């Protein structure tokens, strides 16, 4: 009867008892930005489908995407892209076994955060 209390024990990974750490928050953010980028992919296909359809529908879709709300969403997705881009490089490096030390992982984490914001601003400046 070792399993008698199985249902009432807390289940792994015990997320609720951990204080959020930079490594865990950045890992969750990598997932969240990845899921958010699905919306970016849908919007890109929508834009191309509109361009292939004709001028009237293109002007509608292009107008929606460059309205203030559209640009706000696209700016958010642009940051999500650059975050996922740089953090993805960080993950690819980890896959080789390099950069996994606590200090290194903290430094590369901060580099990802700074670079994602900087590149979002650079892209916006280039787009205007």
């Amino acid at each position, binding site marked *: 009867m070792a399993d008698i209390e199985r249902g009432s024990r807390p289940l792994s990974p015990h997320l609720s008892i951990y204080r959020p750490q930079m490594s865990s928050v950045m890992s969750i953010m990598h997932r969240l930005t*990845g899921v958010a980028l699905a919306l970016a*992919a*849908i919007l890109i296909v929508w834009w*191309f*489908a509109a*361009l292939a359809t004709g*001028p009237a529908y293109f002007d509608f879709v292009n107008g929606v995407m460059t309205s203030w709300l559209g640009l706000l969403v696209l700016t958010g997705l642009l940051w999500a892209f650059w975050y996922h881009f740089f953090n993805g490089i960080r993950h690819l490096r980890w896959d080789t076994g390099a950069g996994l030390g606590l200090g290194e992982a903290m430094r590369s984490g901060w580099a990802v955060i700074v670079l994602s914001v900087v590149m979002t601003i650079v892209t916006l400046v280039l787009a205007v």
Partner: protein
Amino acid sequence: MSHKSYLTDYKRVAGLGVAKSGVGHWTAQRVSAMALLPLTVLFLYTFIGALGGSYEDALATYQRPYPAVVALLLMLVMFRHLRLGLQVVIEDYVSDHKAQMRAQILNMLTWRTLAIVGIFAIAKIAFSA
């Protein structure tokens, strides 16, 4: 990536592990990630110029071979990477078996369909020159 193979000797001989797959997914996710590093940046370069512009300018941009080929490659690689990534997210968070199967089938169909729609649209634009 290490020079060592991620496949065990047995799996290489038999072709299937206990889960029937696994390393293939892991490798495809990372290979597509590496391909997306240059592809997304090249795509962004032409897309931010065309977005918000006129219909004629957008059409002219993607009638050129280089932006069209980059956009086509993006459709292939981006949707593969997206499908593989969301597959794992669904595996992790959908615990009910029936809901899991439904979500996985939907995931398999949706992104492949959208990729084809994108490829069709870009090809139509590119060949309309």
